């Protein structure tokens, strides 16, 4: 994991000092609401329904035990004993006091964390595959490039006031687990004909009000040109992106309105002029790569026989292993998911006690590191198979072992009307209801891989348009209604969900979801996943049943 040098540390400390001055200025009335808004947003601070919300960066989802303990401490000291993990691998606190935010940032800086550019119309936290560096289908570990991009984006002087927010995701594996096709820029590590690794660059993808799948702008970019190419795209966007209407200000609209051919011509022209000046030196790449060197894996981890035995003897453990762990490139190791989707807890939330305990588990079983996923769970990425049983028991005691990763109750869910000032409708309550309706684990596991994403408004923070089942809260004359979509996906075969029909009332949502799943159970072919069935039969069979009584 990347460790800060003096430059990194100085920079975040100076950023804390700057934000402290800005906050004091605002509290003294020296700067306007509007000016402070732009300044605080660039430091992750929103004003929400009840209190400010502070979003802290989880650089490409990677955290160490010390940082997790610090989050627990902040939850205890400055918040109501919990925090929330987001779809872009960040961490949110919902109840800090504005006056104390500079103190929180100072505490974070002690453990190499910050809230820089986690909101606002600027370059945001770069996200990546939660299985980076350990998965079995990887072309190259994307994290060193994420770190290079993190540094480049941090306090970039030219691109701090973009037309709209800008998100970059990097994937290094064959299977896209980072939703790169739905980012402003998506980067895929690929091999060219000569066997060298570089980037396939996508641009103009995005979710929100106008979901669009990103298009390839550069099929193969040499690594040394990574930053010059990003800079060229950003300069063109900064100069020509629309600023007259915030709903048309994302780069996807610029690409759409100018056409890919014209847009890529502008980028190419700009890039050729700056390319040589911004080349990444091979030793710089190597130095960053060295910080992501594999940990000291035990070479005989696969010799263990207890793991197989324990699965035979304990069905609940075997179920957890099947659903909540993933294959690891090193024999004898697995990646273990920590489910933040327990039935009685809001999706993605974690208490201070759980955070502290998980930090200890990371130290004990996974080289002191932890990752957050874009589906709002956590992962201990490097667990020996012999340790999994003990880990499972401890996670179970913490209510963090619900064996539902990848199932219908592993929902992505935004904070909704309960917290967010933008929301039109509640989401946490509905997630709870769906969870209760699907409490039969055997049924849930029989349904298998179904991704349900639910947002409380059009802004789509929970990526409902790419959910296998999407739920979107809308407001109709002061009443909460929910639009359903089917067939979306953010993975390799990216697709935007198709609307099922008219919005359903709040008390009908759970019924509609269970009906959809029943239709699947009854009409699926052998081994056919939910998404595959929707692709095969379309939405009509589902529609007929959901609206049958209306």
């Amino acid at each position, binding site marked *: 994991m990347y460790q800060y040098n003096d430059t990194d540390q100085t920079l975040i400390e100076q950023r804390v000092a700057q934000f402290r001055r800005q906050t004091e200025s605002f509290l003294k009335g020296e700067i306007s609401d509007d000016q402070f808004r732009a300044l605080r947003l660039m430091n992750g601070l929103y004003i929400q329904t009840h209190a400010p919300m502070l979003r802290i960066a989880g650089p490409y989802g990677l955290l160490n035990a010390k940082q997790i303990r610090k989050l627990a401490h902040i939850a205890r000291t400055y918040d109501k004993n919990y925090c929330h993990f987001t779809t872009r691998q960040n961490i949110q606190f919902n109840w800090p006091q504005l006056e104390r935010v500079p103190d929180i940032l100072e505490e974070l800086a002690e453990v190499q964390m910050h809230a820089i550019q986690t909101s606002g119309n600027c370059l945001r936290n770069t996200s990546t595959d939660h299985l980076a560096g350990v998965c079995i289908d990887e072309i190259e570990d994307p994290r060193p490039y994420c770190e290079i991009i993190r540094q480049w984006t941090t306090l*970039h*002087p*030219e691109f701090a006031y973009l037309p709209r927010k800008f998100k970059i995701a990097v994937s290094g594996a064959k299977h896209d687990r980072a939703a790169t096709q739905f980012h402003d820029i998506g980067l895929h590590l690929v091999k060219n004909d000569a066997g060298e690794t570089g980037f396939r660059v996508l641009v103009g993808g995005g979710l929100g009000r106008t979901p669009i799948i990103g298009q390839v702008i550069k099929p193969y970019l040499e690594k040394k040109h990574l930053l010059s190419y990003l800079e060229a795209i950003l300069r063109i966007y900064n100069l020509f992106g629309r600023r007259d209407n915030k709903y048309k200000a994302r780069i996807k609209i610029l690409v759409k309105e100018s056409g890919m051919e014209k847009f890529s011509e502008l980028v190419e022209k700009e890039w050729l002029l700056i390319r040589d000046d911004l080349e990444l030196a091979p030793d710089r790449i190597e130095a960053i790569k060295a910080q992501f060197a594999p940990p000291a894996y035990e070479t005989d981890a696969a010799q263990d026989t207890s793991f197989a035995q324990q699965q035979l003897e304990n069905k609940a453990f075997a179920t957890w292993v099947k659903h909540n762990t993933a294959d690891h490139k090193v024999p004898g190791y697995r990646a273990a998911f920590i489910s933040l989707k327990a039935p009685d807890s809001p999706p993605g939330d974690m208490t201070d006690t759980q955070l502290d305990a998980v930090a200890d588990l990371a130290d004990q079983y996974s080289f002191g590191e932890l990752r957050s996923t874009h589906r709002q769970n956590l992962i201990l990425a490097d667990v020996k198979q012999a340790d999994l049983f003990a880990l499972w028991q401890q996670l179970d005691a913490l209510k963090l072992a619900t064996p539902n990763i990848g199932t219908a109750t592993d929902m992505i869910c935004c904070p909704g009307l309960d917290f967010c000032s933008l929301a039109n409708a509640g989401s946490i309550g509905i997630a709870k209801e769906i969870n209760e309706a699907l409490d039969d684990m055997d049924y849930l596991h029989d349904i298998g891989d179904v991704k349900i994403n639910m947002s409380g408004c059009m802004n789509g923070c929970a990526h409902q348009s790419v959910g296998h089942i999407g739920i979107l809260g809308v407001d109709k004359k002061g009443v909460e209604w929910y639009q359903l979509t089917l067939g979306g996906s953010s993975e390799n075969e990216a697709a935007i969900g198709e609307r099922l029909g008219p919005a359903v009332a709040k008390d009908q949502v759970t019924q509609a979801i269970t009906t959809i799943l029943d239709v699947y159970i009854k009409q699926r072919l052998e081994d056919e996943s939910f998404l595959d069935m929707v692709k095969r039969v379309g939405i009509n069979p589902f529609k007929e049943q959901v609206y049958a009584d209306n």
Partner: protein
Amino acid sequence: MQIIKDKQIVDDSWSYIADDAELKDGDISVSLARWKKDKQQLLKSNGKIGVRIGPADSLEDIAADLKDIQLIELDFPAFADGRMFSHAWLLRGRYNYQGEIRATGHFVRDQVFYLSRVGVNAFSLEKTEDLPVALSNLNDFSVNYQKSIR
């Protein structure tokens, strides 16, 4: 009126001439439209010449004239209009402009650090009492990650 120039608070010698006002002696700046229209007359004036540009203006329109222009004013209509940052970078990094680049209009003092990094070397603030603080804001950070102008 005082401004910040090259990290010092100094008296300003320039006057901006509105498009419908008469040209006058001394160091004057005009809009890009006026420059295009009255270029020959302006080149004969006895003072130095500046051109004020807005975010939507294209620098290509003025690139060939930069040798005759001693001041470019980047006039912010709103502080969040980030095009000005790219204009400054392009003036220095692409067109190798050596004259004064001054931020004017509705920018805020918290932006002077970034502006200085992309090549702006003078700042005319809405409130002159903010000048000392803005001067200190130029040193908000002693480190940075990216190659830019400074």
